[in-house]
């Protein structure tokens, strides 16, 4: 039942990011929660993201106590839970999305659902469904031994977070533990659109580069093509979440598709194409 070890294979997420960089842009990563407003709509919306230029999907699993999320994502995930979201719907959604589009699908989840499902079993089922790995907002590398070994065995990506408040030693730890990219938290806060992206994001990416990071994607507060363009001037990827969820809330799949197209315009042709870094 276990997936054979394929150690040494290149992460499709890293590969996608490197390709976008070599083409003169950067990766656009779009977040949507599974099951909002319905399971079908969330699948269609994720497919629409990719069809309109999003490079990597971050699929959120709704959780009862999402401490890293602001009001927009809280409301959406609470509704998904009220509608009866179960973890198996997450795997169904990954299957349905990866059957239709080629983009890597990372799953964003708080830790307790994975723990209850069983870390090894979760890794096997995620791999079998076609998922690329996990983004774990409340799991720091210090507590991640089980996930490190399960993801090694199944060749899944591990995206840990780096924050403006992280010490240099912790940045090194995040880089060494991560596979795919390091989730660079743009500002001290929770998810949600902000008028300006904090200068802290640029400083943090520079600090990460200084200690050897080759794949840093910036998230939190990013909502416009201009912000995407600004961030991709110095980072490898830009992550948009709440703005997409709000578009889905207000205008359905069509509105998400339109916003994705706008955002993607900000992610391309930032500098001349070059050899992959």
């Amino acid at each position, binding site marked *: 039942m276990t997936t054979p070890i394929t150690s040494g294979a290149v992460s499709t997420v890293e590969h996608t990011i490197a390709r976008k960089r070599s083409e003169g842009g950067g990766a656009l990563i779009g977040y949507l929660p599974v099951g909002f407003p319905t399971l079908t709509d969330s699948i269609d919306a994720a497919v629409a993201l990719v069809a309109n230029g999003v490079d990597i999907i971050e699929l959120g699993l709704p*959780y*009862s*106590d*999402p*401490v*890293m999320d*602001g009001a927009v994502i*809280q409301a959406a995930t*609470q509704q998904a*839970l009220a509608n009866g979201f*179960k*973890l198996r719907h997450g795997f169904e959604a990954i299957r349905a999305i990866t059957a239709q589009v080629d983009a890597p699908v990372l799953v964003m989840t708080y*830790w*307790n*659902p*994975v*723990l*209850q*499902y069983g870390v090894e079993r979760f890794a096997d089922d995620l791999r079998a469904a076609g998922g690329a790995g996990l983004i774990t*907002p*409340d*799991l*720091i590398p*210090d*507590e991640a031994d089980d996930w490190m070994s399960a993801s090694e065995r199944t060749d899944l990506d591990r995206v*840990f*977070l*780096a*924050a*403006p*408040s*992280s*010490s240099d030693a*912790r940045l090194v730890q*995040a880089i060494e533990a991560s596979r795919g990219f390091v989730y660079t*938290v743009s500002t*001290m*806060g*929770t998810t949600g659109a902000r008028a300006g992206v904090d200068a802290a994001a640029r400083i943090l990416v520079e600090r990460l580069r200084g200690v050897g990071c080759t794949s840093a994607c910036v998230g939190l507060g990013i909502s416009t093509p201009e912000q995407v363009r600004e961030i991709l001037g110095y980072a490898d990827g830009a992550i948009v979440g709440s703005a997409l969820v709000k578009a889905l809330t207000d205008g359905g799949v069509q509105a998400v598709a339109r916003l994705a197209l706008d955002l993607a315009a900000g992610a391309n042709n930032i500098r001349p194409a070059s050899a992959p870094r």
Partner: protein
Amino acid sequence: MSLRTQPGPYFGDFGGRFVPESLVAALDELTAEYELAKNDPAFAAALMTLHMNYSGRPSIITEVPRFAEYAGGARIILKREDLNHTGSHKINNALGQALLTQRIGKTRVIAETGAGQHGVATATVAALFGLECVVYMGEVDTERQALNVARMRLLGAEVVPVKTGSRTLKDAINDAMRDWVSNVDTTNYIFGTVAGPHPFPAMVRDFQKIIGEEARKQVLDLTGSLPDAVTACVGGGSNAMGIFDAFLDDPDVALFGYEAAGDGVETPRHAATITKGRPGVLHGARSMLLQDEDGQTVDSHSISAGLDYPGVGPEHAWLASIGRATYLPITDDEAMSALRLLSRTEGIIPAIESSHALAGTLELGRALGPEATILVNLSGRGDKDMETAGRYFDLLDEGAEQS
């Protein structure tokens, strides 16, 4: 090996730090500063001065023979944390963490509260130390503990009613954590119980263990021997850890924690985390937890806002796992009838939270018999609960008349 003063972050398989990376620096700073403070005689002296001259320590013990008649004649002694300034044990911890906040140099404090007792204690120390104070409280709790909301506001704190999730203590903790992530430069989180990420479980226990240290000596002075059992109610578990800690290395002293069983542990409406939960991660620590098969937190229910929490401190989960302490469920009805019994037999109105410990003690006394001595932590007074108690007993009396 001593079971006392476990330093964390782990208590057996429980504890740890399951938090966003953004909070790690603040938790590291708090841990480092607390380690320094713990070994600084000036810090201990400043805290003791506040205990003696501000909150009224040592709290007394009171033997309650008329109440004990209903407990099989066992000797029952109450540790009177209800007599502390602000009305509960919560002030012990709030004073300690406020001193620590001052040491770190932060000017704003936040807190979560369920029954409002920790919120009131935090608002009180914020007033005393001149700190800006914001208290997160579930909207359901702001309604059932309206008196404490007024107290906090009078003390100058901002009270934020939390409208997400189940709108109770667990959601108040979520919002306090979100505030902390956003304002960690200026803000210290004065956490109210022995749960949460390291260093909170060990630190809050250390600030509360004075309860048991005093009581152990007081009971020895009164009776010439250690009690046969020590009892306390358990929500997050700070008053219970506070009175248990001093007795952990006394193998002949049995420890009993009473959890809120709400409508009964056989129903879905309870908060009996250790009795009915499974290991999991919530609010930064691995502990016991009420959850569904997907790891989603299940809403808890209790007539007592202070025990209405689906988690519990990791040290309790550990003490349960090694069999050092026993955790048993007490229903709303059992707690309310113990509340009325202590009021009528001894002239002491206990908090509904503490009434769970009293109800458990009635049963325990009958089991242990008249030779036994039981020390009960009376963690808070019932003034805040008069609206709930009034409604509960009026309904009951009306029903009784009709039947």
